[in-house]
């Protein structure tokens, strides 16, 4: 199969060798080019995503949204970024300066590092590490550290409370996320992001075979991204803005950027793990199509993220924690076991996939039914006045 990177790479290497460079320099320049491409791609796509979210939320709320700067307000985010860059940056007197200044950069670093292992097209991946999937989760813990540092060092009660809420939430939803992500790994027998896409040939997307695992990942991603309905860690009406309350100017911009880049990357990961990545019709003949398919699938998910944010109300902290541990973790454990059993089932692959799909739908229905029953019981108890409002 034709792969893009080697093709371009050969041409590029021939060019460099023609210029008479040693192999060490070529390795360095390779790395530099990949780095610049990834960073440029990440930062520009964030500008677009912010615009998209504002436009979308506006439409949901029957407003126009940004429409002054550039066509359809497309350059609005650039203007905002410039404004934030030139804004005064206030450091509270009581803050612990070192942690306070390090936290925003660390938050951006944690998210930027994720870009490295995302296959944007056939062969187009920054670095195909063979522990790719776990690497993604591990970088998430770096983000958690950034939040802890920001929340603690601001020396502000809201920031501290928001920070610790955030960490409790991120930790809780990390487990179902890891469980959901282990299902594609189980099917493909690899953790390399590139090979995971290769394994999803002929429309056998893992998200189609295991819709429940995909759904579990999607919900966990919503929570990991601190999005509605899981955005209570920055609940404006309760703790003002959460861990980044004291941040202003460019430091705030970094948290903002990390948030939006995380949305994009979580969608890209979902696309890679569950929706076949860059796979699609005719991609074998025209590899460049892969980039288009990848972006299209990712942005459908980004759209869903934003739509949910514009529509849903917020959960309460006890509901949020209970949902992670009492609904998602057990479901995740069951799903891993089900996937493992079916992989070993001695039937034709197609039969197995159909069976798996049906079992998944059944599990989803059962879980939804149980949650629904619990909620109805709670509402009934509340309306009877038996429950004491605490």
């Amino acid at each position, binding site marked *: 199969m034709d792969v893009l990177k080697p093709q371009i790479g050969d041409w590029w290497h021939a060019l460099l060798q023609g210029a008479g460079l040693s192999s060490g320099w070529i390795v360095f320049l390779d790395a530099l080019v990949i780095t610049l491409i990834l960073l440029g791609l990440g930062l520009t796509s964030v500008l677009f995503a912010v615009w998209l979210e504002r436009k979308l939320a506006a439409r949901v709320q029957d407003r126009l949204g940004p429409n002054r700067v550039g066509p359809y307000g497309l350059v609005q985010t650039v203007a905002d970024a410039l404004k934030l860059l030139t804004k005064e940056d206030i450091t509270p007197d009581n803050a612990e300066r070192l942690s306070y200044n390090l936290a925003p950069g660390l938050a951006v670093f944690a998210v930027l590092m994720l870009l490295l292992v995302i296959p944007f097209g056939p062969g187009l991946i920054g670095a195909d590490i063979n*522990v790719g999937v776990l690497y993604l989760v591990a970088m998430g813990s770096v983000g958690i550290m950034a939040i802890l540092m920001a929340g603690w060092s601001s020396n502000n009660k809201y920031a501290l409370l928001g920070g610790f809420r955030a960490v409790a939430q991120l930790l809780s939803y990390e487990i179902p996320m890891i469980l959901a992500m282990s299902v594609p790994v189980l099917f493909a027998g690899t953790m390399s992001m590139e090979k995971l896409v290769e394994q999803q040939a002929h429309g056998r997307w893992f998200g189609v075979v295991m819709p429940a695992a995909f759904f579990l990942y999607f919900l966990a991603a919503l929570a990991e991204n601190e999005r509605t309905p899981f955005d209570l860690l920055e609940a404006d009406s309760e703790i003002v803005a959460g861990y980044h309350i004291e941040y202003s100017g460019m430091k705030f911009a970094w948290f903002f950027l990390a948030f939006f880049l995380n949305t994009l990357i979580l969608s890209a990961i979902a696309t890679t793990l569950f929706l076949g990545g860059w796979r699609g019709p005719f991609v074998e003949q025209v590899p460049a199509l892969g980039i288009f398919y990848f972006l299209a699938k990712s942005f459908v998910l980004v759209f869903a993220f934003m739509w949910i944010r514009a529509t849903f109300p917020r959960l309460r902290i006890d509901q949020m924690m209970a949902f992670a541990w009492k609904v998602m973790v057990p479901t995740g454990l069951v799903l891993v076991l089900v996937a493992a059993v079916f992989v070993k089932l001695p039937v034709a692959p197609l039969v197995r996939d159909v069976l798996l799909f049906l079992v998944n739908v059944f599990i989803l229905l059962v879980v939804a039914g149980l949650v629904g029953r619990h909620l109805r019981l709670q509402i009934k108890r509340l309306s009877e006045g038996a429950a004491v409002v605490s």
Partner: protein
Amino acid sequence: MILKVVFLLVSLFTVGSALMVVTHKNLFSSALFLVASFFGVAALYVLLEAEFLAVAQVLIYVGAIATLIIFAIMLTRGMMSGRTSPRNDQAAWAGLASVVLGLVLLYVVVFRVQWPVVEKPVPPDTIEQLGRALVGRYVVPFEVASVLLLAALVGAVLIAREKEV
């Protein structure tokens, strides 16, 4: 050559942060330096081409253990606000004890352990081999470890709940 420089830098970073952990006055900052030190260790694993270990190190030590330590600092009375001094009247004895212990450990590690030195590249399927080993050769330690974790959870829950009541 470059690898050696990188190794030296990473080692310096790791040891330096470890020193900051024990000398810093603020306990929370100490915890953050501990995280930095964990990262240094992860980077050392990467230099050894042990990617799984590196990722597990970040995931478990930075993501889980460090957070647990920070939460523990938070819920201990008076730990968050006051600047606890790392020194007390037993500092000299403790220093002596740790230096002696450190030297003994170093001696054993350097001179008494037969390190298997094999000059060959790391196989590409290390993770698969690890998986095989976990359910094959090391299955009993593996399951015992999970029972141990369960026991740790039960014990901690019992202690923590007693405090609450």
